[in-house]
């Protein structure tokens, strides 16, 4: 069985006239790096909330279909049980840190689970180091930059040793450089520790290269799913409002003009640069 399995999921928020997620089916295997994108209001955030049971436990509303995450039915298991398996990182870094020092914040989930102090200290120090914020562990959340705050949020979910980390537009409040650093941290977790990552992002320029499982959502439905090289070179994807990476666009333009590059569609500037260099050498 896949790590995450969703079958014909339809969900309507209380008081809403139409469903935010409409007949979504999805499978995510262990160790995958899944990228979800789509225009605002397409249901990405709602889908994230489904992974750890915030929908429907926290939000109520009407849910149809089946969800199983890490072998648990989220309808039957509360968010605090799911939290051990699924870590959710939110968009606004400021509103997910509540303690007066960073290490205390990172320990929050462990404290809630009643982990004993020695073990807690070990895990907290470990994740602080993994995310590169060990040196600022005694500072207060409001004294550090947005990028650092988001690393704290990642460290905080990481401390609970989840199998899955879901990040809902974690960089939309950050500048490009901090964003890139966050992506690198996330990618490293996926690569080195085999943590399954589900990343919701608009910045495909920086992230498309990490994934081979891209999901494009629109109006509560999954419109495209699969190989990013194929999906991103599709004209329809652009029309939905997905920000196609510039390298991919340039590649398409060059191809239209008859420049024949190595066949695979590039997802990042580096890939395109390599292809161009190769083409120039041959000629």
């Amino acid at each position, binding site marked *: 069985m896949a790590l995450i399995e969703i079958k014909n999921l339809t969900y309507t928020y209380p008081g809403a006239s139409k469903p935010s997620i409409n007949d979504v089916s999805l499978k995510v295997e262990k160790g995958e790096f899944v990228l979800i994108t789509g225009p605002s209001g397409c249901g990405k955030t709602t889908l994230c909330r489904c992974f*750890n049971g915030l929908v429907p436990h926290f939000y109520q509303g009407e849910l149809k279909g089946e969800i199983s995450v890490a072998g648990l039915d989220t309808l039957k298991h509360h968010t605090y049980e799911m939290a051990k398996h699924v*870590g959710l990182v*939110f968009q606004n870094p400021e509103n997910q840190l509540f303690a007066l020092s960073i290490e205390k914040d990172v320990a929050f989930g462990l404290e*809630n689970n*009643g982990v*004993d102090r020695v073990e807690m200290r070990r895990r907290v120090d470990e994740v602080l180091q993994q995310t590169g914020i060990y040196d600022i562990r005694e500072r207060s959340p409001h004294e550090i930059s947005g990028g650092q705050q988001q690393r704290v949020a990642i460290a905080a979910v990481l401390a609970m040793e989840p199998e899955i980390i879901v990040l809902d537009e974690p960089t939309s409040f950050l500048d490009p450089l901090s964003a890139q650093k966050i992506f690198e941290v996330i990618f490293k977790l996926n690569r080195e520790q085999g943590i399954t990552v589900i990343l919701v992002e608009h910045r495909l320029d920086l992230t498309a290269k990490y994934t081979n499982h891209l999901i494009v959502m629109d109006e509560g439905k999954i419109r495209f799913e699969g190989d990013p090289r194929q999906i991103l070179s599709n004209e329809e994807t652009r029309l939905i409002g997905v920000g196609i990476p510039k390298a991919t666009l340039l590649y398409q333009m060059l191809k239209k003009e008859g420049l024949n590059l190595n066949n695979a569609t590039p997802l990042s500037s580096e890939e395109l640069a390599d292809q161009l260099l190769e083409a120039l050498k041959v000629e």
Partner: protein
Amino acid sequence: MSVFDGLKFRKVYSPIHNLDPRMKFAYVIAIFVVAIIFYQVIPLLVLFFMQIPFVLLARVQRQWLRSLRGAAFLAAFIFIINVVTTYFTSGYTFTAINIENSTAMTLRFIVLVESFSVFFLTTSPDHLGLALEESRVPYEFAFAFTTAVRFVPVLAEEAQTIMDAQKARGLELEKGGLLKRIRNYIPILIPLIVSAIRRSLELAEAMESRAWGAAKKRTNLYSLKLHKGDFALLAITIGILALAVYAHFNVAVPTVSSLLGF
């Protein structure tokens, strides 16, 4: 923003800051009790000067003086009321003893203010929250307290942003009479409250996602341990209390006026 600066906390290390907040609180309460037991100037003066080594050790003189200055108006008020009422009750005369008693009342107030301000100036909210938790206050309350402190600077910043935005749209805050000025702040308050509510929802969501309420028995990353300094403070506290109670029953405290020979 300067209004909110006083509410920001900084991590400071000093022998006094490192003391156990529970011990410090016990000390403050002891001072409080002693200040109530005595109504004479001399012991109250002693109490007043006894705080100064703490202030100096903690290196919070500047903030401490500021809080005393804040209390000055109220102190003057207490003094005048006392003098005036004793003037009427003692047959329309000013006596040295009356003035002295009024001074003692004022001193008592100042001693209370100063000892509490030393406590709050030298105890980080983090420590205070921890002390609340360890004295078996339900965790929800301790959490609410630390979170409130955590969000003070955030909300202050947001209030500033909203003020700037509304001013940019032509809102004039410093215009009109008192009532009009108060009304001017409505366009600041409403967005501030709305966004605070929205923020609290996001916060609740984040707490849920981090296993809030998972285990019956919560653990804590930090623990309060009593060190040498804490025992010393405890000894001082008990000493002061014992001495005060003994003096209260067995020693006739002279008044300043009798010493001066009035």
